[in-house]
């Protein structure tokens, strides 16, 4: 089977309700037992995750459920207390964000990670600058600013991002939505294996949000794995192949939009229900958390 996604296979696989899409494909990312505590606050309590090539895995959960902390553990922004991560079946030690990048995993963090005083092109190439050819690049280590600007312009254009006009504009002069566009553009343009997006459409207008989701669809079609964190259930149900529900620092279950309704999913997310081993939703004995009305 090729890397190209076959939607019917994905659908039927997901319909099984289990957490693994069939096709015998190995997961891109396999996380097991990721735990992280901040003093007395247990942010993550042994979370697992499987991300397959050519799928969009949504990660949902209430505020403070541990979604951001979890993906930070996957990308080296946070070092988990325990747990293992495999990329392409190989156990890896991701100790800093550059390690994840080297593995082909790009991330848009919730609080973005742009350098305000530097311009868009510089931000896109931060940490992977292009040097001049020949002596000036190899010995003098001189940056090829024109090349980086040209490529940045091309990438932004290829991605169809129309909100970014002047590539030499400092990021601090951009609107919130434009900044988000820069962060998304960087991840999408350079991700070669997986792209992780933590609420990438939070600051975006309707048109721009749709555009980001189009990019996600394209990434999936190219065979990349996408982890999408979002509070927008409509969006999640429209685009995700599988949905991993996080609750109080744990994985409350993995469902599929094809086998579970939004109501069921939200019930599991809020603790009003739980998933049994067969993926059935059973009302929970535990009282729903105070936050839910």
């Amino acid at each position, binding site marked *: 089977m090729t890397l190209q996604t076959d939607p019917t296979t994905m659908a039927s696989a997901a319909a099984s309700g289990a957490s693994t899409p069939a096709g015998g494909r190995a997961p891109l990312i396999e996380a097991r037992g990721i735990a992280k505590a901040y003093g007395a606050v247990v942010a993550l309590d042994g979370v697992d995750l499987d991300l397959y090539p050519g799928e969009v895995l949504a990660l949902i959960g209430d505020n403070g459920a541990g979604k951001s902390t979890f993906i930070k553990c996957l990308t080296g*922004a946070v070092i988990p207390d325990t747990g293992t991560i495999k990329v392409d079946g190989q156990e890896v030690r991701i100790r*800093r*964000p*550059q390690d994840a*990048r080297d593995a082909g995993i790009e*991330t848009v*963090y919730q*609080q*973005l*990670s*742009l*350098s*305000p*005083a*530097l311009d868009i092109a*510089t*931000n896109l190439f*931060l*940490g*992977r*600058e292009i*040097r001049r050819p020949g002596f000036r690049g190899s010995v*003098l*280590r*001189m*940056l090829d600013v024109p090349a980086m600007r040209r490529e940045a312009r091309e990438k932004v254009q290829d991605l169809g991002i129309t909100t970014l*006009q*002047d590539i030499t*504009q400092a990021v*601090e*002069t*951009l*609107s919130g939505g434009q900044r988000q566009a820069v962060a998304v553009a960087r991840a999408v343009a350079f991700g070669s294996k997986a792209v992780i997006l933590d609420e990438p459409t939070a600051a975006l207008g309707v048109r721009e949000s749709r555009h980001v989701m189009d990019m996600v669809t394209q990434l999936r079609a190219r065979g990349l794995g996408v982890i999408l964190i979002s509070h927008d259930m409509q969006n999640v149900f429209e685009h995700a192949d599988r949905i991993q529900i996080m609750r109080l620092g744990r994985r409350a279950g993995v469902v599929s939009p094809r086998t579970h309704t939004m109501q069921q999913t939200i019930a599991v997310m809020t603790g009003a229900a739980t998933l049994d081993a067969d993926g059935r939703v059973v009302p929970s004995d535990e009282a729903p958390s105070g936050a839910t009305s």
Partner: protein
Amino acid sequence: MTVTHLERRGSTPLERLQLLLHRRPTISPLVVLIVASAVFGLASDRFLQPSNLSLILQQVAVIALLAVGQTIIVLTAGIDLSVGAMMILVALVMGAFGGPLGWNGIVVVLLGLMLGGLAGGLNAFLVVRIRLPPFIATLGTLNIFVALALILSGGRSTPGTDLDPFLTWTATAFAIGDFRLTMGVVLVLLVYLVVGFALSQTAWGRHIYATGDDEPAAHLTGIRTRRVLTSAYVLAGVICGLAAWALIGRVGAATPNSAVDANLDSITAVVIGGTSLFGGRGRLAGTLLGALIVGVFRNGLALMRVDVIYQTLAIGVLILLAVSLDQWIRKGRSAS
């Protein structure tokens, strides 16, 4: 070229000025330097004479050199209170080895640069590993380095005549037209060129700016911010070693009693040069201008027979004006 949002937004002349100064941070120190030179030139016939201008260059050389290291640190949103102390320490060690112990001058200079790097490495360790605020870390090492210098030298100076000639080579003078320059001045300009190139043209420079701008963000981008910070402090130490060499030439001796104000003067040059103490913005060229401004003010006021106390007063006012200007420029930015 496309019109940016900002250029459209900068509607009033004042806003446009704010934008211009933000994009070109060296403009304000350059204007100050030119205006000050013109005023002093009118006030005193001697001020603009080549001999006097050469003198100013020699007077500011050591401070200008220290200010290079200081600029790198300030760009990372830090501050190094120990640059002057590192310089004195290195100068005295160079004096001891190049004088009484009679070591080869070239070896001694290399030793001095290594010692400077080591001292900078201690600062880096405290800031990067122990996570002390740079102000506190370097306040501590400032005292340690001064004490070490005095312990090692026993408080004694080594006169230039007792030193290996290579150690006083920075005092070697030569003429260009009516100007008399020293090798020390050349060394300073060379350091500005090299470090200026590294800051503006290499990935390392971009990473310095990004780290100072927003360290957590830079780290998430994949920049190894700890390594970047370490390199900044070590490099600043090495530059202090070079400054020690220039100092021996300038004073004509390795002595603990010189350049006591060097530390604060280096920060003054950086601040007047338009580098933001909040990190991430500024130009090394601005620092050179800042050092020259300080030199021009001191020299010009002295020629006008203004008391040293009032020179210091003028520098103080300059610092406050420069920082206020920086705040104003930054405010225009965050409001957008």
